[in-house]
C-alpha cells in the first residue's frame, strides 16, 4: 500500500494496524523525496537521524500519540540541532545550529520524525519561493510554476504527497498563500500561540509558525503539539491550549461569516470569484450566515506591512555579519570591509532590498513618517478587526487574488506587483489573528485557496469550519499528476 498522499490520520491507522512500521514509513518517505527531487522541495535531508529514530520506534498495542513515527518536513528556517539550517540563504549555507527550535522540538517530542528541511524564499522574504539561494521550487500541479512562498518547499512536499504535513512560518501569508497555490491546508495561528524560539526571525512582531497539511484535521493534530507558552519566548501567549482535534466536529448553525467590503472581490478574476461564491453557498448550506462588514483601514495593509516588516528585518538581520557564524568574506581590509563584503556576498537581492527599505524607514528624520506612522495604522487595522469580531465569528476571503504563476513572470521588473499577492493575507498578521487556507477547487487547472480569518485565539473555530467544509467536499483530496517530476 503506497503511503503517498496519505494524511496523518490515515498513516496513523496504517501504523496502528501494523500495515507498515515506522521504519518503513520513514524509508518510503525518504524514497519519495528522492524520487521527486526535481521539485526541489528539500534543501537538506535528515536521512541518518530519521532512519535511526524511526528504527527505534517499536510497534505496541498501546495507544500511541498521533505523531509517533510520523514523518514531517521542517521549513529550513527552524533551527535544528546538528542539522544544517540555511534559511535558503548563501549567508547561512553552512550553518549547523547547536539547538532546536521549540516548535520542532515539541513535534519531535511527540514522536514526529524530521525527514528534511524544506526550501523557502530567502529568509522568508518572498511570495513565490524564487528568492531561494538553492533555486526555485516547482508547483507539483504544474512544472515551471511557482508553489507560492515563502513556505514553498513545505507546501510542495505536502502537495506532492511526500510527507503528510510540514511546518511553515507566516509573516504576511507565507503559510496560507503557498498552501492555496499547492491545493493543501495551511494554518497561521494567533501571534504568540506557537513559540518563536529557534525560528530565524524575519519580522519579529509578525512571524508565526504553523502547520501545512492535507486536511484541517491534520493541522489540528500538529497545532496541538506545536502550541503553548514558552519561557524562552516572552511574546508567546500564556493561555490555555484547547484540544483542537477534539473540538473539530461542532455544527456551525448560526455561525456568522463576514465578507470584507473593502476587498472589492467583484474586481477579481471571474473564475476566482466563482470559486468563492460556490464556497459561500456551501457554508450557507451548512448553516452559516453571511454579512458584509467594513474594515475601513484594511486597504492600507500592504504599505503598512511593507514599512514594518522590512524595518524589523533590517535590524534582525544585522547579526549576519560574518563574525561568529555564517558566510565570511575573504580578504577583508578591516572590520567595516568585512561587514560590507560578507553581507554583499551572502544576501540575495530581495533581502538586500528589504534591508535597505527598513533601514530607511527607521532612519533619523524618516522614522515618524514611515515606521511610526505604520505602527499607528497597524493599530487602526487591529481596531477594525476588534470591531467586526463583535458582530461576526469568522471573516472569509480568497487566500490570494490569483493562482500560481510562471517562474519569473511576476515582480522581476516591479517588486510591488509581487507584494500585492499578499493583499488578503497580510492584515491578519498585522492584527495577530489566526487564519487558515483550504483548497476550494481550481482555476485554470491550478488550485485556489479559501481563507478564513478568526478572532484572537479562535483557531478552534477556524479548524472546525474548515473541517466541516472538507467533510462535505473533496477539493482537498485531489492529487497532482507528478509524471513530469519523476
Amino acid at each position, binding site marked *: 500500500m503506497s503511503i503517498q498522499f496519505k494524511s496523518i490520520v490515515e498513516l496513523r491507522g496504517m501504523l496502528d494496524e501494523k500495515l507498515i512500521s515506522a521504519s518503513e514509513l520513514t524509508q518510503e518517505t525518504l524514497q519519495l523525496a528522492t524520487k521527486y527531487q526535481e521539485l526541489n522541495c528539500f534543501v537538506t535531508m535528515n536521512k541518518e537521524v530519521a532512519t535511526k529514530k524511526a528504527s527505534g520506534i517499536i510497534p505496541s498495542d498501546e495507544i500511541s500519540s498521533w505523531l509517533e513515527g510520523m514523518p514531517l518536513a521542517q521549513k529550513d528556517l*527552524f*533551527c535544528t540541532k546538528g542539522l544544517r*539550517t540555511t*534559511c535558503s540563504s548563501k549567508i*547561512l549555507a553552512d*550553518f549547523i*545550529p*547547536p*539547538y532546536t*527550535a521549540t516548535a520542532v522540538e515539541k513535534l519531535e517530542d511527540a514522536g514526529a520524525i524530521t525527514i528534511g528541511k524544506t526550501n523557502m524564499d530567502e529568509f522568508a522574504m518572498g511570495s513565490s519561493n524564487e528568492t531561494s539561494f538553492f533555486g526555485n521550487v516547482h508547483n507539483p500541479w504544474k512544472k515551471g510554476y511557482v508553489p507560492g512562498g515563502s513556505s514553498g518547499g513545505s507546501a510542495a512536499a505536502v502537495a506532492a504527497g511526500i510527507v503528510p504535513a510540514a511546518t511553515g512560518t507566516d509573516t504576511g501569508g507565507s503559510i496560507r498563500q503557498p498552501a492555496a497555490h499547492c491545493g493543501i491546508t495551511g494554518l497561521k495561528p494567533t501571534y504568540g500561540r506557537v513559540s*518563536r*524560539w*529557534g*525560528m*530565524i*526571525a524575519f*519580522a*519579529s*512582531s509578525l512571524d508565526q509558525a504553523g502547520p501545512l497539511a492535507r486536511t484541517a484535521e491534520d493541522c489540528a493534530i500538529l497545532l496541538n503539539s506545536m502550541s503553548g507558552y514558552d*519561557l*524562552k*519566548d*516572552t*511574546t508567546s501567549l500564556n493561555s490555555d491550549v484547547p484540544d483542537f482535534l477534539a473540538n473539530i466536529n461542532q455544527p456551525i448553525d448560526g455561525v456568522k461569516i463576514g465578507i470584507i467590503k473593502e476587498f472589492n472581490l467583484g474586481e477579481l478574476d471571474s473564475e476566482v470569484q466563482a470559486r468563492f461564491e460556490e464556497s459561500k453557498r456551501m457554508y450557507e448550506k451548512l448553516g452559516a450566515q453571511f454579512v458584509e462588514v467594513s474594515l475601513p483601514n484594511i486597504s492600507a495593509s500592504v504599505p503598512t506591512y511593507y514599512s514594518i516588516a522590512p*524595518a*524589523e528585518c*533590517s*535590524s534582525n*538581520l*544585522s*547579526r*549576519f*555579519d560574518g*563574525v*561568529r*557564524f555564517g558566510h565570511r568574506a575573504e580578504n577583508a581590509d578591516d*572590520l*567595516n570591509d568585512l*561587514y560590507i563584503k560578507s553581507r554583499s556576498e551572502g544576501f540575495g537581492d530581495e533581502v538586500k532590498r528589504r534591508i535597505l527599505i527598513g*533601514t530607511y524607514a*527607521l*532612519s*533619523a528624520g524618516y*522614522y515618524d513618517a514611515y*515606521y511610526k506612522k505604520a505602527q499607528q495604522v497597524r493599530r487602526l487595522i487591529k481596531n477594525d478587526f476588534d470591531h467586526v469580531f463583535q458582530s461576526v465569528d469568522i471573516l472569509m476571503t480568497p487566500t490570494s487574488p490569483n493562482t500560481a504563476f510562471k517562474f519569473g513572470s511576476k515582480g522581476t521588473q516591479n517588486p510591488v506587483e509581487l507584494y500585492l499577492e499578499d493583499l488578503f493575507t497580510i492584515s491578519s498578521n498585522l492584527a495577530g489573528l489566526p487564519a487558515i487556507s483550504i483548497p476550494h477547487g481550481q482555476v485554470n487547472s491550478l488550485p485556489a485557496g479559501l481563507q478564513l480569518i478568526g478572532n484572537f485565539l479562535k483557531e478552534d473555530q477556524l479548524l472546525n469550519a474548515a473541517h466541516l467544509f472538507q467533510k462535505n467536499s473533496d477539493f482537498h483530496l485531489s492529487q497532482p499528476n507528478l509524471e513530469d517530476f519523476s
Partner: protein
Amino acid sequence: MSWETVIGLETHVQLSTKTKLFSRASTTFGANPNTNVNLVDCGLPGVLPSINKEAFYKAIRLGMAINAQINQTSIFDRKNYFYADLPKGYQITQMDLPIVLGGSIEIFLDGATKKINITRAHLEEDAGKSIHDEYDGFSAIDLNRAGTPLLEIVSEPELSSAKEAVAYMKAMHQLVTYLDVSDGNMAQGSLRCDANVSIRKNGDKELGIRTEIKNINSFKFIEKAINFEIKRQIKVLESGEKVTQETRLYDSVKDETRPMRSKEFANDYRYFPEPDLLPVIISDEEMQKIKDTFPELPRQKELRYQKEYELSAYEAQIIASSKSIANFFESAAKKTKNYALLANWLIGEISAYLNKELMEIHESKLNPDNVSALINRIDDQTISGKIAKSIFEEMCISGSSPDKIIESKGLKQITDDDAIEKIVDEVIVKNTEQVEGYKAGKDKLFGFFVGQVMKVTQGKANPQTVNKILKEKLKK
C-alpha cells in the same frame, strides 16, 4: 576672563544580578573568555531575549532611593549599530519609556551639601569586549560581558567642577553599594561614567558647546580628565576658536583627552521598540515588596549610630559612609561595649591600613570577632594601646585572634604595682647620673625613665602605672 564649568554625568552601573539581563548566563567577573556565554549572548539566529526581573528590582530600588518616578510599565528599544563585540548588531536599551524618571541625589563637598537632579535611569545590556593586542594579526572577542545588565543614570548638567563630579560619583558609589544594586567595583568597570563637559562665560545663560569624555572608571581619572578638558576648552575659546562637539577619550598615561575617531560616533542608531519583548509591567505587589525590604540608607544609619552607640556625629558619618565598614562595625559592636574605642580604631588604624593596601574591609583578613576582641583586651587593660598596634599588624597578616597572639608572644600587660615598682627601682639604681640630672631640673629626662622601664618589660608595663610609680620614686 572668568569661566564657568557645566558638567553632566552619565553613570553606567553594572547591576549585581547573578545572571544577565536577557539570558541565564552567569555574570561572574574574571571567568575564562567566552565561558559565561550562552546561545542568546552569542546572538545566534533564532534566539530571543527573556527578562531578568531582578535587574528591574535593583533599578527600582535605586529609583526609590533618589525619590524618582518609577514607570511600572517600561519598554525596551533597539539601538542599531555594527561592532564586532555587539553580537546582534543592536543593543537592547530603553529609550522612550525608561524604568526611572527624575529624582535627585545629594553630594557632599567641603562640608556643604548640594542637590543634583537626575534626568532618568534606564536599563540596557552591556556589549562584549574586543581585544586587539593579544593575538598577532587578529582581534579577539570575549562575550562574557555581553548582556550584563547596566543601569545608565543620567544627571542634569548641574555639576560645576571636577571636584563636584567626583563627589557625585562618590555619592553614587555609596548609594549603589548600600542598596546592593551593584558591587560598585570601579576597577572592574562596575561603576563608570561619561562626562559631558562645557564651559561658558560667567553669568551667561546659554550653555556652551559640550564634549563627552567616554568611559572613565576611577575617581582620580574623573577629576583629572575633567580638569584637563576644562583647561583645553578655555584655551580653545580664549584663542577665539570654537569647541567642537565630539566624543573624547581620556588617556591616563598622558593625562589628556583626545577625540575618538569620528566614525565611531557618526551613527544613526535607528532606535525602535524591541519587538521581541513585551512591555515590562511591575505590579503593585512587586513595588510593595521592594519597599518592604528596602535597606537602611547612610543618613538613617548615621542617626541610629549616634543614638544607639553614642558615637559623635563625625564618627557616625564616617562609619556609615561605607556599607562594608558599617556592617563590620555593627557586627563587632555586638561583642564589645566600648563602641567609642571600636569606632576610633575603625576610623584610625583600620582605615589607614585598608587605604594603604587599597582594600575593602571584607577583602582583608580582619573579622569583626577578632577586632572586637582586640578592643576588649585594650579596654580591660590586658594590653596597652601600643602593644595593640603590633597585635593588629599581626592580625592583618595572619588573621589569627588577638588572644592567641597575646598568648603566644607573651604580650600580656604588666599591671601589677609591685612588679613594676621592682623594675623602676632597678632602673633608678642603674641610671644615677640621669636621676641626678632629673632632680636638678631636667624634666625632660622623665621620658627616658619611662623608656627604660618599657625596654625592660618589652612594652608590656601599663604606662599609667609606670608614670605613677616613677613620679613617686623620683620626687625631688
